[in-house]
């Protein structure tokens, strides 16, 4: 990709080269079939135990909660309340997208433009039929005082700058997708269980897709399963041809990077973590029959 290139750092270059390196492992087709069969065998009975009308969505956050703090699964579902920290990814992703496409020359400028554009979209959507939907945070953001708006902007700038400086965007031969739509897989049998995956950057390493995930803190023991989960959801939702060759994890807070080459064992590990997390959440929701666990 040649447009929108503004910066290049040695550290970013080595990460980008590793991220975009040709796939070393072919798509593990037989293992994938086996894993799909295993999930279709193990997940529907768990979903059947969910309280009537309950819906469970298992994404990266739910996996982490079930693994690290299973007690919190039983504490009920807190309504989503926007905050600078909770909005930083949504705004930051849009800002990095602008930088990568050459529509802004820095995350600081891009975030300001994203916020202004969110407010404009809000006005347009109210007055023009068929206008694009404004971003989910825009209505909340509109009501904020200047100091609060600055806090939102600052948090998003920091997040966006960390992603923007992590990669050497001039190394991409094809334009990467920044953010993009989350991946969803509806577990057959009542559609009560949905598995979700997401990535911050989706690109191509020659003919194979690759994904990059930005996480907070530092990688724990389960980093491989966490990263492979993103690939597993893609495999379940879109089929084996879409399976990424690797998922890179970036923890800007600690400066650590992990690369998960997506092979049979990695996917199998992710499947085991998914079944385990689902069982933990279902157990918790059985104890709270009115719970509806749906992540925003």
């Amino acid at each position: 990709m040649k447009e929108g290139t503004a910066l290049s750092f040695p550290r970013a270059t080595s990460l980008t080269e590793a991220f975009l390196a040709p796939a070393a492992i072919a798509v593990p087709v037989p293992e994938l079939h086996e894993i799909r069969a295993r999930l279709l065998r193990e997940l529907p009975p768990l979903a059947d135990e969910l309280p009537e009308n309950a819906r469970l969505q298992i994404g990266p956050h739910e996996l982490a909660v079930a693994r690290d703090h299973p007690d919190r699964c039983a504490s009920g579902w807190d309504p989503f309340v926007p905050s600078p920290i909770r909005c930083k990814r949504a705004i930051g992703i849009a800002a990095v997208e602008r930088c990568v496409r050459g529509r802004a020359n820095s995350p600081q400028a891009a975030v300001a433009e994203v916020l202004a554009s969110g407010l404009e979209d809000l006005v347009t959507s109210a007055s023009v039929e068929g206008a694009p939907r404004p971003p989910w945070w825009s209505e909340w953001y509109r009501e904020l005082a200047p100091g609060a708006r600055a806090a939102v902007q600052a948090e998003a700038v920091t997040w966006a700058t960390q992603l923007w400086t992590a990669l050497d965007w001039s190394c991409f031969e094809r334009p990467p997708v920044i953010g993009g739509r989350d991946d969803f897989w509806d577990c057959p049998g009542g559609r009560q269980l949905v598995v979700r995956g997401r990535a911050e950057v989706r690109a191509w390493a020659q003919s194979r897709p690759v994904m990059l995930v930005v996480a907070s803190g530092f990688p724990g023991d389960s980093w491989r399963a966490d990263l492979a989960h993103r690939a597993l959801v893609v495999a379940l939702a879109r089929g084996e041809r879409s399976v990424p060759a690797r998922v890179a994890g970036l923890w800007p807070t600690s400066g650590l990077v992990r690369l998960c080459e997506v092979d049979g064992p990695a996917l199998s590990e992710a499947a085991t973590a998914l079944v385990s997390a689902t069982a933990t959440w279902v157990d918790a929701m059985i104890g709270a029959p009115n719970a509806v666990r749906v992540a925003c």
Partner: protein
Amino acid sequence: MDPGLAGGLRDWLEDVLSPAVAGLPSDAVPVRVTKEAVNQVLACEAHHLARKSEPRVVTAELARGTLVDALFRQWVTVGVVGDPWADALAGIECDGDATIIDFVGGLEGDARRRLVEEVRAHAASIASAWPASNPSWLARTQERLSVPLAGGRLVLSGVVDLAFGAPCAGRASVCLVELKSGGRRLEHRGDLHFYALLETLRSGAPPFRIATYYSRSGELDAEHVGEDVLLGALHRTLAGAERLCRLACGAEPARTPNPLCAWCSELPRCAPGQERAQSAIPRVAGDPTTDDPKWDGYEHGEDEVGQ
């Protein structure tokens, strides 16, 4: 820069801390090593444990520090501050810091007026001292740093008020700035050196410059980061981390009389502290009737901002 520096520092930390971490119970939560924890535990282990168990005390100094931090962040990011008091409060409220909002809401009369005036003065000082941030500086505010050691059983962590420049493993390319709304203190250097160590471990290269900005006086205390700075920070961090591990194992805390004894909640149960403070009744942080007029809130105040 020495390309092996960061790896060497990390190995050093891992090697020395390995026995201390090995003694932790297998189900222990990770030992978190912050600048506050290091300062406290090196001053007095009993004081550190007392502070850990007591609720957060909000003082006028802490409130001021938090408000000025919010304004600094706004100035660096947006380049505009309208009504400093309203902007700072809105920023803090949005971040969900209810304790500060409640404290400020409870202030009346002169105390409130004084704080409002102080915040306005700090805002004016920031605006006059800091140019509009150039986007190419890649400024990040309230940037979190965390360095896991021993497989994550011990974590060095902190929040830097302002970082400039993109991390780069082969070159010192980042500048760190800490904002202090109180007076200049010797301990501030140690805090900054701790952050320099964290940034070096995180990025693989030390920051090229670190600085403390005093928003009351407008002074900028900047220094170059050489190996001596990093080694000093490393030794201090090791000493603090070893003590924190020992305490996490349930060891009896050592009692070290120091100037903070008079404010320590452990004072009624601490003979050496009582001897030092000449009293068994702790003073109340921020209380003008018992407080030391020279005390500027470091221990109970702005030091905790951002953590």
